[in-house]
């Protein structure tokens, strides 16, 4: 499928040849905002407009899906002084601008920006005596016109470059609904890229095969397009998503949230798998770049052939697809107040957090509860006070509750900046005259229950050595931990030999279950999040597997030193749901069984079981089918989410030594795939140290 033209295109993008067109300075938006005394919504709109205007269209001879960002930096709309005053006493989420949500791309495509414009105009007539609404709608209209203007200039540039056919497409979309698959892809490229121009990030792509299939289906039926040509267009679209992604903010390069969902149920509960589902998997496999990050919704009934195709991506080492289990996720969302139709329509935010496109202004990653820290405090205080084991568990719950309250209370003061353009792309904002930042149908928060395996292992080790076997005295344990186990080898050995999560051993798994149960109770007890939503507990770690062990500037969560599972200070935790580093486990089935014990109805913010497979596995012809069956057994086990990575430790070590020779080597990091050589060392080392299941 990757013909020479596409291969050359991919190489040019990887080499960032287009980066020479990037402009050194961003437009000065602040000055006019001040001179005209613009309101915040109008400033946000003006930013989008000036950013669109500053873009210099780039039409490369080969490209049939265009847009290349040439203004790398997003300029400020307030002076630092004004910004401080504006945000005083409030909490900004990460960088400030709304991020990590998903637009209703299907709706926007089908209406076109002119259709959205009409909706805004109708609302203006209806809401003419609501000044806030009028202000918002004027801002939204300014952004619609700005993006239309950008498309118009791209059309002119295409015409000037002798690309009449491309010009015709750009004259059509994103203004009007696409007539073809090609137009739909071009429309999405512009609409999506424009979100980033306003300073937003982690802009998800949602259920791509659901909203795109009608356009492709119509082309195939009318024989305007055959499958091969469709795949080529799709490959171009996927490659285009990698053009500007080095400019997108994230904790690490590659952490950019361009997640794309495939498969799963439709809103009425039927199977939504269509021919585009498999096509997108094939194309992602062949393009083999880090964007878009592919997610696949499955159930225990998902076709084995589709799973085997997905396994081909895993075999290539792309680190995706990440699998979400409809059988578990949908009931959990319903249990948390989502309408059944919306629950069936879920997608993921940047990494794994379940959201509903177009209907959620959710902040799914307000921070983490450090389970190791909570357990460590509970163990030390409990043992010092001569408490029993149950009392230690109770202290751990109280401690998690305290950490949670610290995070949630900050976020009860959350300040979301107005987002007029993003609002155009959501359900109901234009209709009601209310900016996205005012909230949507779903306004929940999500918190990571981070580094759970180590915390459960610590509890299991204390229970066994101190309370059951009575082989370790409480004071001795505290002393050994204070000494980071120096001179306490046999005690540390006893802790390491205690039951561990990942072996389907109830002595450890019960601790994991108890921790998540109590974490979920703490989240329920937190009540309203200040925005009419709840706080959803999750099981992911994000980057906290490094931060909670080693610390990070500006981090609010506590750092934990030596832990009672035998882990020395500063050693990293496992990412998401995975046995602790160095723990000997029997194999992936036991890992699945350990994590299948969690009550995912209560723990629904997402966070995958993270399994590494040795790439030596894929030497066998049957390996793909076997990986597919492993994924099916994951679904049958009642687990919620799974990410599989394929690694070759020797190759990773070699890549660390000679990055230049391995610049295209991809690995899964915590909830996304990145280029190994572009990661900072701690993240590289963590991937190398993960336990890979062989044959």
């Amino acid at each position: 499928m990757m013909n020479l033209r596409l291969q050359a295109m991919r190489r040019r993008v990887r080499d960032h040849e287009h980066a020479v067109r990037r402009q050194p300075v961003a437009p000065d938006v602040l000055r006019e905002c001040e001179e005209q005394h613009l309101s915040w919504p109008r400033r946000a709109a003006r930013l989008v407009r000036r950013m669109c205007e500053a873009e210099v269209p780039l039409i490369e001879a080969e490209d049939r899906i265009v847009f290349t960002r040439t203004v790398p930096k997003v300029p400020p709309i307030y002076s630092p002084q004004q910004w401080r005053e504006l945000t005083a006493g409030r909490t900004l989420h990460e960088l400030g601008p709304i991020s990590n949500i998903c637009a209703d791309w299907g709706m926007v495509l089908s209406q076109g920006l002119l259709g959205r414009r009409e909706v805004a105009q109708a609302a203006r007539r209806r809401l003419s005596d609501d000044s806030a609404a009028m202000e918002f709608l004027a801002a939204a209209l300014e952004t619609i016109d700005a993006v239309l203007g950008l498309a118009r200039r791209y059309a002119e540039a295409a015409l000037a470059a002798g690309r009449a056919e491309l010009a015709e497409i750009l004259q059509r979309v994103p203004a009007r609904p696409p007539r073809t698959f090609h137009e739909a892809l071009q429309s999405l490229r512009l609409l999506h890229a424009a979100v980033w121009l306003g300073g937003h990030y982690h802009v998800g792509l949602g259920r791509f095969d659901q909203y795109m299939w009608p356009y492709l289906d119509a082309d195939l039926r009318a024989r305007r397009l055959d499958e091969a040509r469709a795949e080529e267009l799709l490959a171009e679209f996927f490659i285009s998503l990698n053009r500007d992604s080095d400019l997108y903010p994230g904790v690490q390069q590659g952490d950019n949230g361009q997640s794309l969902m495939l498969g799963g149920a439709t809103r009425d509960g039927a199977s939504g798998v269509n021919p585009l589902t498999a096509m997108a998997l094939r194309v992602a496999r062949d393009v083999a770049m880090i964007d878009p990050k592919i997610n696949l919704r499955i159930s225990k009934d998902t076709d084995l052939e589709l799973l085997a195709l997905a396994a081909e991506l895993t075999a290539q080492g792309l680190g995706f697809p990440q699998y979400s289990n409809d059988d578990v996720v949908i009931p959990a969302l319903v249990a948390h107040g989502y309408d059944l139709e919306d629950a069936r329509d879920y997608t993921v935010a940047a990494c794994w957090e379940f959201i509903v496109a177009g209907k959620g202004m959710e902040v799914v990653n307000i921070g983490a509860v450090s389970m190791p820290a909570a357990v460590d405090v509970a163990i030390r205080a409990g043992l010092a006070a001569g408490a029993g084991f149950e009392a230690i568990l109770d202290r751990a719950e109280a401690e998690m509750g305290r950490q949670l309250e610290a995070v949630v209370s900050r976020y009860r003061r959350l300040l979301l900046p107005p987002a007029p353009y993003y609002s155009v792309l959501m359900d109901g904002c234009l209709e009601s005259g209310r900016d996205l930042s005012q909230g949507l149908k779903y306004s929940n928060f999500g918190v990571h229950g981070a580094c759970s395996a180590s915390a459960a292992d610590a509890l299991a080790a204390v229970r066994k050595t101190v309370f059951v076997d009575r082989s370790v005295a409480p004071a001795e344990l505290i002393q050994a931990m204070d000494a980071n186990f120096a001179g306490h080898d046999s005690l540390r050995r006893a802790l390491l030999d205690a039951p561990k999560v990942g072996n389907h051993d109830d002595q450890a798994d019960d601790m994991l279950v108890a921790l998540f149960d109590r974490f979920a109770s703490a989240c329920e007890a937190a009540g309203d999040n200040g925005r009419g939503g709840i706080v959803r507990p999750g099981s992911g770690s994000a980057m906290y597997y490094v931060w909670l062990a080693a610390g990070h500037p500006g981090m609010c969560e506590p750092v934990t030193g030596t832990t009672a599972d035998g882990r020395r200070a500063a050693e990293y935790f496992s990412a998401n749901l995975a046995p602790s580093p160095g723990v000997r486990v029997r194999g992936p089935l036991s890992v699945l069984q350990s994590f299948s014990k969690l009550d995912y109805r209560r723990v629904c913010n997402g966070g995958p079981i993270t399994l590494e497979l040795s790439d030596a596995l894929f030497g066998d012809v049957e390996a793909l089918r076997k990986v597919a069956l492993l994924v099916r057994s994951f679904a049958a086990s009642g687990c919620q989410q799974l990410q599989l990575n394929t690694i070759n430790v020797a190759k990773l070590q070699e890549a660390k030594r000679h990055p230049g020779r391995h610049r295209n080597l991809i690995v899964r990091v915590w909830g996304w795939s990145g280029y190994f050589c572009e990661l900072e060392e701690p993240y590289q080392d963590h991937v190398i140290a993960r336990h890979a299941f062989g044959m």
Partner: protein
Amino acid sequence: MQTGIVFDIREFSIHDGPNLRTTVFLKGCPLRCAWCHNPEGLSPQPQVIDTPSGTRTSGQPYTSAELARLLNRQAGLLRAGQGGVTFSGGEPLLQAAFVAEVLDQLDRLHVVLDTSGFGDEASFHGLAERVDLVYFDLKLMDPAMHRRCTGQDNRIVLRNLDQLAGLATPCVIRVPLVPGVTDTEDNLAAIARAAAGVPHLVRVDLLTYNRAAGGKYAACGMEFHPQWDESQAVRANTAVFEAAGLPVTVH
């Protein structure tokens, strides 16, 4: 109740049978194949293994009930993966009574017996008749060569193959390809003739020599002395099997 010695239980084992499987490696083998890549399985007794990451004891006793309980706990997942359990080794026939007792207690699991074919005839018959699929090794058809390379006579192996031919249990014949030793035209042709006499043969698997074969010897306090050129490519001669009308795969 029988007790067995197990040196490994490996989940998601790729090479040991169809679909999603967990393989039980039983300790102890009567053969001493010169190319054996799993020296841990040779001695029937638990032994201390000295690996680069520390010492550990290889070989753990399980009662049949313990092992069955452990496997049954995964039955749901294994069935969802359309697979089951494989008994391998070492040589499972050496612990046939133990294996039989485990089989008695398994919860509707597909079972593969992975055997060298060298073992007591009644034991072989008893297990082979009960399992769902037999993986049967054929290494060398020439008796002298077989004695030289495995330390044992192949008459017992061939008698068990005859027994297998009389059973309804489907089987796969597996041939380790060792360069210049087992991959000769004559040997493979003789194996093809023998395989053709087995009515429920599913296919023949040719297993190419693994150059990491000697990797575990030092850890077991043993030395590996290949009498063949390890750098030489094996001849995966599928033609002789295809000519005999036998499905054949190369791994």
